[in-house]
């Protein structure tokens, strides 16, 4: 299941340059490059002639030249040169996609281009805000994109998958969780009061006694999860909104489906303390990255397991509440999108 009329993260800004770069998104092969002015371009990664991926070609000025027979395409996907032939068939073109560069990521619109409003891009300003220290990265995931969304909406797993970094038993046994569902949004708020800090928090926050810890997960469809996480010494008023003497971080996640069974996972970590300290930014990033590698191993194993049996029954537990709400929103949005497509096809 894919939702098409949405902006997705296609690449980090540094991945796209003057060398054509191919990536599969929602099962569509796409080639990215920058014009001589630096603007990102996205075209169908398949020559209209004999279907060689255009990402194997090269740029001639702002034209993308196919590696096979030298057909050249402009930034709108129109073939503008065929070697040895003056007349260019009107069908000699490839699909072009709206793209926008924002928050160190290049975003792509996978649906009807007429609906591609950049104002709909989900806010990830923490990645390039001077008031925050931040670092981002990319992981290739061998699982359906919804397994990653599920993972981030239920952080009980931190106690088991990430016990050496960001998790401890308190997360699963002593948390108070609030799940707020709006029509197109789920917020999961979890407080862990007067419990030991997990290893990563001890390393970067210097906690020596129990903490009040929060995890506020903001889910925006189709697959954006912005986590507000942190801790303060216990009893200092964080649950009432007084965050003093502790640490606050943002864990930022954008998942882009590659196929039904593989995903592109763009993520970043931002912190609002000692923001110019690059060494600290790296230290925090490396701790979280270690945890994310552990998650990626879980996703792959889940997908392999799911591949063995189609739609196996599953048991839901209390901690799944946020996951279930998000899945219902996604199912409804998919139904609505399909209904609109069928209606327009019938006109």
């Amino acid at each position, binding site marked *: 299941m894919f939702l098409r009329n949405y902006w997705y993260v296609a690449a980090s800004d540094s991945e796209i340059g003057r060398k054509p770069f191919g990536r599969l998104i929602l099962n569509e092969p796409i080639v990215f490059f920058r014009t001589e002015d630096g603007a990102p371009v996205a075209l169908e990664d398949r020559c209209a002639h004999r279907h060689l991926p255009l990402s194997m070609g090269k740029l001639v000025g702002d034209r993308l030249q196919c590696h096979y027979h030298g057909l050249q395409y402009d930034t709108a996907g129109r073939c503008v040169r065929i070697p040895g032939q003056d007349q260019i068939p009107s069908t000699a073109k490839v699909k072009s996609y709206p793209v926008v560069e924002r928050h160190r990521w290049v975003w792509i619109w996978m649906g009807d281009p007429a609906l591609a409003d950049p104002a709909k891009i989900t806010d990830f300003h923490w990645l390039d805000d001077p008031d925050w220290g931040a670092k981002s990265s990319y992981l290739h995931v061998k699982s359906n994109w919804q397994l990653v969304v599920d993972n981030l909406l239920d952080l009980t797993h931190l106690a088991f998958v990430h016990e050496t970094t960001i998790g401890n038993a308190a997360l*699963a*046994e*002593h*948390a*108070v*969780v*609030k*799940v*707020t*569902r*709006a*029509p197109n949004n789920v917020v999961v708020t979890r407080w862990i*009061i007067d419990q030991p800090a997990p290893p990563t928090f001890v390393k970067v926050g210097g906690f020596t006694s129990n903490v009040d810890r929060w995890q506020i997960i903001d889910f925006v469809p189709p697959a954006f999860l912005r986590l507000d996480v942190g801790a303060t010494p216990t009893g200092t008023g964080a649950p009432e909104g007084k965050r003093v003497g502790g640490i606050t971080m943002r864990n930022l996640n954008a998942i882009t489906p590659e196929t039904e069974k593989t995903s592109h996972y763009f993520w970043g970590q931002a912190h609002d303390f000692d923001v110019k300290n690059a060494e600290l930014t790296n230290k925090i990033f490396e701790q979280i990255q270690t945890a994310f590698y552990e998650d990626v191993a879980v996703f792959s194993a889940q997908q392999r397991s799911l591949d063995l049996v189609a739609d196996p029954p599953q048991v839901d537990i*209390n*901690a799944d*509440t946020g996951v*279930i*709400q998000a899945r*219902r929103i996604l199912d409804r949005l998919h139904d609505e999108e399909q209904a609109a497509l069928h209606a327009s096809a019938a006109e």
Partner: protein
Amino acid sequence: MKFRVELVWKDDDETAASSIYLTADGRVILQGAAVSREERERLALPADGAMISVDRRLIRAIKDML
């Protein structure tokens, strides 16, 4: 403190329904107002058993979220 989950459903206009609680011992607890003896008599409701009245948004929340 044990693990417990509170569910809140919000309408398009951001109006929230009252809460649903899932507790560690497996119960679903609804937030509502107790129905008094006077109300039971006035509304011809049974006199026995605990009763609460809930707003209609909570019913929508139960249908959508549980």
